């Protein structure tokens, strides 16, 4: 039960972020990008739940729509990483030894290259946008997927059921699809959750630096950046998006850890 507590807490936090993002498609308290000088820097009230920023925009509405951006970037980035990284890892684990070594060394090379630097480079070349941020974060996350997929593949390939499948005349591609992939999907899921947390943080950092989501699309990272100059006057402007980022990252990390406990074969209790 105690082990499951983290999983549940993570699921609730992630669920909260997802729910807020979904609701924002249909309803927000105010138009998140409506500038109204008459309501600048208001504190929380019944009308403005979390108050307004220096342009009079509603913070609550911005956070809600920002959740959308965050999840969008996370899903696409993790999707790119998983779709490229998992097959690479399986190939590295099943293919000839030299091929596996080659893939993993290239992997190490990419891993050694900071994701933010890659994103800033891409942003400089192709222009800063949510799209370039997603690609950069995705590409930078490929190695972690390739690595866990390879480890899982090696473990599955050493099992007797793979030997039995080969004894039954199954080809290698067949074994990869029918035996390896289903049995490493658990650890890939765990990696997705953990990578999602990193992607959320990376997107916020990029938007903060001006290499991510461009205005007027609300983004938690850019909200933080805009709050900078007023930090001494009104720390609430930084606290609100900061808390949103913290909740999302914590949620995905807890979820990942909880799932890891469930899927880690070393911890598995025979059901």
């Amino acid at each position: 039960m105690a082990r499951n507590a983290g999983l549940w807490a993570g699921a609730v936090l992630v669920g909260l972020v997802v729910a807020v993002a979904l609701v924002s498609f249909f309803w927000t308290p105010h138009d998140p990008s409506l500038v109204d000088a008459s309501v600048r820097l208001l504190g929380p009230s019944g009308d403005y739940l979390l108050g307004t920023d220096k342009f009079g925009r509603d913070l609550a509405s911005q956070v809600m729509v920002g959740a959308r951006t965050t999840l969008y970037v996370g899903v696409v980035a993790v999707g790119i990483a998983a779709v490229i990284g998992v097959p690479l890892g399986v190939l590295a684990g099943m293919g000839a030894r030299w091929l596996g070594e080659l893939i993993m060394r290239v992997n190490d090379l990419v891993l050694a290259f900071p994701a933010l630097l890659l994103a800033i480079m891409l942003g400089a070349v192709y222009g800063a946008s949510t799209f370039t941020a997603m690609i950069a974060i995705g590409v930078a996350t490929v190695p972690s997927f390739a690595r866990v997929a390879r480890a899982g593949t090696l473990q599955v390939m050493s099992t007797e059921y793979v030997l039995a499948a080969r004894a039954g005349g199954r080809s290698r591609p067949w074994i990869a699809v029918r035996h390896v992939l289903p049995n490493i999907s658990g650890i890939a899921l765990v990696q997705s959750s953990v990578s999602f947390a990193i992607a959320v943080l990376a997107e916020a950092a990029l938007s903060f630096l001006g290499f991510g989501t461009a205005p007027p699309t609300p983004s938690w990272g850019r909200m933080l950046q805009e709050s900078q100059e007023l930090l001494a006057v009104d720390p609430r402007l930084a606290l609100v998006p900061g808390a949103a980022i913290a909740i999302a990252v914590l949620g995905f990390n807890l979820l990942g850890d909880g799932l890891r406990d469930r899927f880690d074969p070393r911890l598995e209790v025979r059901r």
Partner: protein
Amino acid sequence: MSLLNVRDLVVSGRDGVLVDHVSFDVGEGERVGLIGASGSGKSLTALALMGLLPEGLSLSGSIRFEGSELAGASERVLSRHRGTDLAMVFQEPMTALNPAMRVGKQVVETMTVHRTRDKAAARKAAVELLDLVGLPDPVTTARAYPHQLSGGQRQRVVLAIALANNPGLLVCDEPTTALDVTVQARILELITAAVRERGSSLLFISHDLAVVASMCERVLVLNEGRIVEHGPTAEVLRDPRHEYTARLLAASSWEVS
């Protein structure tokens, strides 16, 4: 001509020779036992026949199945033979099935992969096979995942998979070692009945003399990678020529009747 001819089979690893010039034949429909202590090279011999030696071990010599050479054959040629001409039952039923796939599906695949039956026929045949190996309620069992079955039930599934394409030679590597005694006897009966009925040959690997004596017409005794004695089971067990066989006999619970 025999079904399987093995000549001068040598398996060597980095630390030396593990199977040393092993030669034997298995005739059509014949049941041959391969006995020896653990580490004597029994399992490696079986894996070599299937072309499934672990990476890092090298093989030389000749393995002919119905006249075609398997030693050094390509993975493609080998996978055509595996599961159809040659099938294998492994020692550990707890790990020999894919935990993420329903067992019925695993039986069906053995047939569809080799196109011995189309999908619908394979499904029907799978249920019949599960019934044949004595699984209760085969329709329901086919939908179960391996973790829902006991060790004995899983080994029955493994046997059903091995029998699915009526193999010419069934290789059993200590198929009952991991099972409790009462289940052991049933599985052994099943294997004997199944190979008899199909006219398949059997290569039965065991360290248990009593089991081999009850199953096999001929026996090969393997010690430290070499065949030290071979002959009709009754003869070898009654009058062991080699000192190692005598020691094996003395150490076993089997009594000469």
